[in-house]
């Protein structure tokens, strides 16, 4: 379990850095920023899921992380220019994926836990 310390430490460092910066983005862009946040959270959960399902690929995770966050924010912005509320589509898509990933992680962990227990019994 010690290998999980580094990502958690990273999360804490990120939070600290984020709360320490005094830089402010204009209020109008907060909406798009929130999509980027959602996308990045989705990427983290997706990464953890792929670890539990043991088909993790660092390149896939990193590229997915940046393109998802950036493209989602850009698309939402473009949607606003065009008068289409793509913002809600992005929130919905990432929201669904988030919960889906969460469920998959839980399933996998439960599965691993049970197989371990069965092995111990034998």
């Amino acid at each position: 379990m010690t290998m999980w310390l580094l990502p958690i430490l990273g999360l804490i460092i990120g939070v600290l850095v984020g709360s320490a910066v005094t830089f402010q983005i204009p209020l109008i862009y907060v909406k798009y920023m929130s999509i980027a946040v959602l996308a990045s959270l989705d990427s983290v959960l997706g990464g953890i899921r792929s670890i539990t399902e043991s088909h993790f690929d660092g390149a896939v995770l990193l590229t997915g992380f940046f393109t998802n966050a950036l493209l989602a924010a850009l698309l939402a912005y473009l949607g606003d220019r065009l008068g289409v509320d793509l913002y809600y589509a992005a929130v919905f898509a990432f929201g669904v994926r988030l919960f889906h990933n969460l469920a998959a992680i839980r399933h996998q962990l439960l599965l691993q836990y049970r197989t371990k227990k069965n092995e111990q019994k034998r």
Partner: protein
Amino acid sequence: MKRKWVIPITLVCIISGFFLSFQLKVLANNNNTNPLSQKNTNLVMIINDLEEEIKNQENIIEKIRNDLSGLENRPIPGELQELQNQLKDARIVAGLTPVVGKGIIITIDDNKEGLKTNPNDDPNKYIVHYEHILNIVSELRVGNAEAISINGQRLITSSEIRCVGNVILINTTRIAPPFEITAIGSPKHLAEIVTNGELDIMQSLNYPITLQEADEVIIPAYKSGLQFRYAKPVKEAK
């Protein structure tokens, strides 16, 4: 177990954490849950731009007025001098020149302490309303105040004191508490009239109030332009 995933996940976690707290901070700083907030910020930006523009134009007016008074102050022979003096007097009466003299300075502020101790009470009972200012100004005028300004805004015949949401408009400029009302006139007389009127009422409601008699107060000139588009003098019958 292979550990090749630790570094990428850590990287992603750092950035996610950064985004997360950054976004939280931005939203916490602007805890405006109003769904119209985006529209509001646009309107606020427009208002700010226009106020900036007004300020610029007022500066231009002031510059032109200064040039004008420079020209007027040149020595002029004969009859014109008389007219010149009349014009100066008219300017002072109209409020287009800064004036100095004996007077009083009143400051009033929202009753923040009262609101803090009774947070569930109606906040309207604790803030300074435009009526308070209006009443004080009326009383000062009864007391023959010759010039009045509020937070640097000279009151002239066309000045309004109007409530717009949580600020007060005077000379179409937004002013906010604490309010400083300056008046030129007999200090004793003015002080007496306001302390027996509106200030007494406000004092009993625990508003923070100060009143100061001064030997020299300066009241600025009216900054905007004066324009009569509709009113014309009545032709006198010969």
